[in-house]
C-alpha cells in the first residue's frame, strides 16, 4: 500500500507540475487541481497508513488511525475547491477580456504590445 500511495502522489505531482508550466490557462488550472489532489493524499499519509482502525481514542484502544490529518485534509479540500472554482471563473473572464487564453496575455512568439510592463 505504501508503494501505491507514494507512487500515486508522485504521479499526480509530476503531471501537476508539468501542466502548471504550460502556457495556456486551461492546462494550468488542471495542473493546479492535480497538484492539490497530490497534496491532499500526501497530507492524509502523514498520519501514517493504517487500515480498519478507529480514528477516535478510547480507553483500551491501542491501535488507531491519526484523526488530525483527516481534519487537515478536509480543510485543505474545501479551500482548494473554492480556489479552483475562483480560478476557473477568472480564466474565462480573462479569456473574454484579453481575447486569448495565454497566461501572459499573448500567444507564443508574438511580442507584447507595450514593450515591457514595468
Amino acid at each position: 500500500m505504501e508503494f501505491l500511495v507514494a507512487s500515486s502522489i508522485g504521479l499526480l505531482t509530476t503531471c501537476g507540475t508539468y501542466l502548471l508550466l504550460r502556457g495556456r490557462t486551461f492546462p494550468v488550472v488542471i495542473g493546479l487541481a492535480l497538484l492539490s489532489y497530490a497534496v491532499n493524499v500526501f497530507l492524509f499519509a502523514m498520519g501514517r497508513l493504517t487500515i480498519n482502525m478507529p480514528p477516535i481514542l478510547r480507553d483500551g484502544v491501542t491501535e488507531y488511525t491519526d484523526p488530525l490529518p483527516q481534519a487537515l485534509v478536509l480543510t485543505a479540500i474545501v479551500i482548494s475547491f473554492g480556489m479552483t472554482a475562483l480560478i476557473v471563473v477568472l480564466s474565462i473572464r480573462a479569456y473574454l477580456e484579453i481575447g486569448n487564453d495565454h497566461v501572459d496575455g499573448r500567444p507564443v512568439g508574438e511580442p507584447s504590445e507595450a514593450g515591457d510592463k514595468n
Partner: protein
Amino acid sequence: MGDWIVVPIVLPAVMAALIVLAVRHDILLQRVFSITATVALVAVTLSLVVFANGNDPEMYALSNWPAPFGIVLVLDRLSAMMVFLTSLLGLGVVLFASSEWDQRGKHFHALFQFQLMGVNGAFLTGDVFNLFVFFEVLLIASYGLMLHGAGAERLKAGMQYIVINLTGSSLFLIGVGMIYSVTGTLNMADLAVQVANVAPGDAALLRAGALVLLLVFCVKAALVPIHFWLPGTYANAPAPVAALFAIMTKVGAYSVLRVYSLAFGDAAGDMAWLAQPYLMPAALITLVLGMVGVVAAKRLNGLIAFSVIGSMGTLLIAIALFTPESIAAGLYYLLHSTFSGAALFLIADLVVSRRGQFGDSLHTAPTFHQSGFLAVLFFVGAIAMAGMPPLSGFIGKLQILDAARGSDAMVWIWAIILVTSLLCIIGFGRAGSVLFWKSASVEGEITVEGAKWPVLPIIATCGMLGGLVALTVFAGPITDYLHGVAAQIFDTSGYIQAVLGEGALALLGQ
C-alpha cells in the same frame, strides 16, 4: 486582556458580513461602516500594544480547547505591534479608497474587511496550520481586491498572482505535512519543544519540511528568486490595494521571523537558525535586483513596486542576521517600509489620475493640476524610501548597518546596502525630475474631470507620510519598544510558557 485578543479577527469578519448583507446597495453606508470599524480596530489594537508591552505573552484558546490540541491565538509584543501596524495602514487605505476607488467595482469594503481579518489572524495565530488558513483568507480577499475594477492588464497580472499563490499554498501544505509527520504537532510553541527533542533519524525530514515552509514564506515576502509575481501585481493593482499589499509582503517576513526564531531558534540543537544560510544571500540579491529595477523602470508604478522588493531585501537582511539588535533594527525598518511603500503608491495614484492619457509612463508630459503640491509629497516619499536623512528610512538603514557590524557577511551587507541606496536615489531622482521638473517646460496643461482637491485621498496620503515623520521624531521611544519586542522574541520560554504552561519548559531543558 483575555477575550480582546480575538477582537482584531472577529470585528472585521462580522463587519464584512454586515456590509455585504445589509448595506451593499448604499455606498455611503458601506463607507461609514468600514471606516468606523477600522477606527475601532485601531483603538483595540493600540490597547493590545500597550497591554503587551507591560505583560508576558498571553494566550487565547479558541473554543476553550487546551493547547496543543486546540488552536490558540497568542498576543505578544511582536504580534501586537503587527496588528496595530495593519490597522493603521488599513485606516489610511480605506480613507483613500472612500472617495472614488470603491465605486469602480463591487464589494470593495467587504473584501477589504476580510483582508484585514486574514492579515490580523496570520499575525495572531499560534498554530502553523491555522497560519495556512489565515493565509488563504487574506489571499482570497486579496484576489478580489487585486481584480477590483478589472481591465485586461489587471486580469492578466491577477491571473499570474493567483496561480503563484495557489502553488505556494500547495507547498505550504506539503511543508506542514512533513513537519507534522515528524513532530506530531502543529502548535508553534509545542513545535519548539518537539523540534528540540526530535529523533536524529527524523531530523532530515523535519529539516526538509522546514525549508519547504521557508520557501513559501519567501514567496509571500517576494524574495529572489521567487519575486516574479510582485512587480506585475503591485503595478497593476488598484492604488489603495497596492498600498494595502504593503503589509502582505510583511506577513511573509513576520512568518519567517516567528517560525524560525521560535521553533528553529537557539534551543533547536542541530537545527538552530536553520533559515539563516539560505535567507541572507537571497536577501542581498533581492536588494540588488529591486534597486536595479528601480533604475530600469519605465513606469512609475513599476518603479515603486521594485523599490518595495528592494526594501523587502533590506528587511530580510536584518532578519537573517538573527541577533536581538538586528531584529529590532529590522522591525523599525519594517514599520518604515510599510508606510513609505503605501504612501508612494497613493501619491502615484494622485499623479496618474491627473495625467490623463499619459498615465504612469515616465515620459515628459504637460503639467497637471497641483503638480507642485504632489511634487512635494513625492519628494518626501522618495527621500523616505531611498533612506536619506532626515526621515525614518535613514534611521532604519543606519540601525541595520550598525547591527551588521561583527557579522561574517558585514562587508557584503554594508557594500550592498550603501550602493543600492545610491541606485534608489538615482531612480527616484530621475522619475521625479521627469514627472515634475522637465514636464514644467512642456507647453500646455492637462485637464481631467474630477475633484480638484480630493479631501480624503490627500488626508490619507499625508497621514502615511505623517506616520513616517512620527517614526522619525519618536525614533527613540519606538526603538526602545522594539528592543523589548526583540528581547521577547529571543526569550522563547515566555511564549512557550504562555501557551503550554510551566511543565513544557522542563522538556525544553530551560
